[in-house]
């Protein structure tokens, strides 16, 4: 019983089997999906309803950045709106901090949105007739916080995103990247535990985008926030996310860390997606190393103690550098003063290709 409680505490957002069906006959459509197991196309044909999100379950843990990656029409924007009930699910439950959103009164739901869940939009949605400071303070203003206090908090938030010198400017005087920072500052000003990011950087040019991705990740980690981040860009998901969920046609196909997804894609769709991603920084020594006994069988003359050493978390890029510096053709992977495996050039090449250790032993 106790263990369950601790786990529930660590999971900030827990959604279980969420469905969203759009259309005038969505209730009937939902019913026949459950009873007759209708597919997306049958639902469209029979009820003229569109299945936006289909049986999605995710858990967002405290302090984690959870990316949801999918192309347009995959249902990712619908899914993120289910998390703060901007869209009401057709079926399924959303628990935020252990509270079922469906059971909250309108006032409690507003309170939850105002205090616990911040949101940043792709369109930014800065009020054009308000200054940067007034925009950043808007969330606090509508909570009824006094002007002096909200301006102080909002200034601090703007400072965190590097806009301290722009307080009295208007949104139309700012570049796209800066506007998005104001959007982030507005979300941060209410000091929520969870930030929902709906494709915030998609409309920015690549250089600014990358800069904002890094800043966002640093800031989120530094402030100890949790975030759900929507993107159509797998590179962005990998750069930002601790864990990634891949969506297609409203279904979550796979959830895992970037490394897990690249090494073990759930299906051909995911495999195709990850094919172009560079493995150098994603795959770690522990995934490609061979076991010590196996290594000793194939090369009995090697003295493992004389090999260069590294940690299980070293990525392929580091391992390649180490191998090039080393005189021997292998690197020992050491965890807690114990050699747990050996990385050979062959395993490195396999890693670059994106194949994991089990395949290696088979070969």
């Amino acid at each position: 019983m106790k263990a369950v409680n601790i786990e529930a505490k660590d999971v900030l957002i827990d959604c279980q089997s969420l469905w969203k069906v759009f259309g005038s006959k969505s209730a009937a459509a939902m019913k026949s999906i459950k009873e007759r197991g209708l597919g997306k196309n049958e639902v469209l044909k029979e009820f003229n309803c569109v299945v936006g999100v289909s049986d999605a379950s995710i858990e967002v843990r405290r302090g984690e950045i959870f990316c949801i990656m999918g192309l347009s029409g995959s249902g990712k924007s619908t899914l993120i709106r289910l998390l703060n009930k901007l869209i009401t699910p057709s079926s399924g439950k959303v628990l935020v901090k252990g509270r079922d959103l469906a059971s909250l009164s309108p006032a409690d739901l507003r309170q939850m949105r105002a205090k616990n869940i911040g949101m940043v939009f792709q369109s930014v949605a800065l009020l054009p007739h308000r200054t940067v400071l007034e925009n950043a303070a808007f969330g606090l203003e509508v909570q009824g916080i006094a002007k002096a206090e909200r301006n102080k908090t909002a200034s601090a938030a703007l400072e965190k995103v590097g806009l301290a010198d722009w307080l009295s400017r208007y949104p139309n005087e700012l570049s796209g990247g800066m506007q998005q920072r104001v959007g982030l500052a507005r979300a941060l000003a209410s000091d929520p535990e969870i930030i929902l990011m709906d494709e915030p950087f998609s409309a920015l040019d690549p250089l600014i985008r990358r800069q904002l991705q890094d800043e966002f990740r640093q800031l989120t980690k530094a402030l100890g926030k949790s975030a759900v981040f929507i993107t159509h860009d797998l590179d962005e998901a990998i750069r930002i996310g601790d864990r990634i969920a891949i969506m297609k046609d409203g279904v979550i196909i796979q959830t895992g860390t970037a490394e897990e997804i690249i090494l073990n894609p759930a299906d051909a769709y995911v495999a195709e997606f990850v094919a172009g991603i560079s493995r150098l920084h994603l795959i770690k020594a522990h995934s490609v190393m061979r076991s010590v006994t196996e290594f000793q069988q194939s090369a009995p003359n090697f003295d493992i103690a004389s090999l260069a050493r590294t940690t299980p978390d070293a990525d392929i890029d580091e391992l390649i550098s180490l191998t090039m510096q080393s005189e021997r053709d292998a690197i020992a992977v050491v965890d807690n003063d114990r050699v747990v495996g050996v990385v050979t050039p062959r395993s490195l090449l396999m890693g670059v290709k994106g194949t994991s250790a089990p395949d290696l032993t088979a070969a």
Partner: protein
Amino acid sequence: MDSSAFTDVFDEWTDSALEWVSDNGESLFDYIRQVLEGLYDGILWLLQLPPFYLIALVVALIGWRLVNVWFALLSGIALALCFWMGLWPETMSTLALVLTATVIALAIGIPIGIAAGFFTALDRFMEPGLDLIQTLPPYIYLLPAIALLGYGPATALIATVIVAVPPAIRLTSLGIRMTPKEFIELGEALGVTPAKMFFKIRLPFALPSIMAGINQSLMMAFGMVVIAGIVGSGGLGETIYGAIRTLDIATSINGAIAIVVLTMVIDRITQSAARLGTGRKA
């Protein structure tokens, strides 16, 4: 029964219905007339209190603040012209009529427009009615009004209000519906209460359109107030109507000039106020 007999019957019905209403609602219409005339007299009294140059000066100052210095000079001189033509009292009573009618029209039109902005069904229901009001020749409204309220400013006010209401309703409703979807979503995501959603998000976006509606109402009211000279509205409308009946072309032109001056001054000032009040200059 041929068709002319049918229309005769219809006309009889209409006449007797109107008669019945005026017979049975006499005290009600008396009351309405008193309220309207009271409001009109109050505003007129205020406008006649200061001498003409003070009003011209105030208008010029407002014009200077809101438009520019040339407009201020021109509007001051133009108002003085109305005085020199000997039409100052008439000009003020026309202004009082227009202001009274517009205030009433806005008091009716803006709330209805807001409701129509929220409820598309109401908007669709009212649309043909508003179309009807705006396509019928405006002096039509003088007839039932004169039957019920008699000769005088009250009749002119009612007819003017009828004409001035549609733009207020239409543009307010349009403004409310114009709030971009992403800002509604922003408000919801921030946990905004419905009242704050209205005042802090919808209203600022609707304001330019509502201001345009106010301006349009004013312009419609100016148009109608002149026509209402026929029913003894007082003011420039009656001056022009009287001058036309006696073929006094000079006076009718003077009256026309005064009305043009008043209309243009009010139009420019309200337009600039709308621009300043709603959008920040870049």
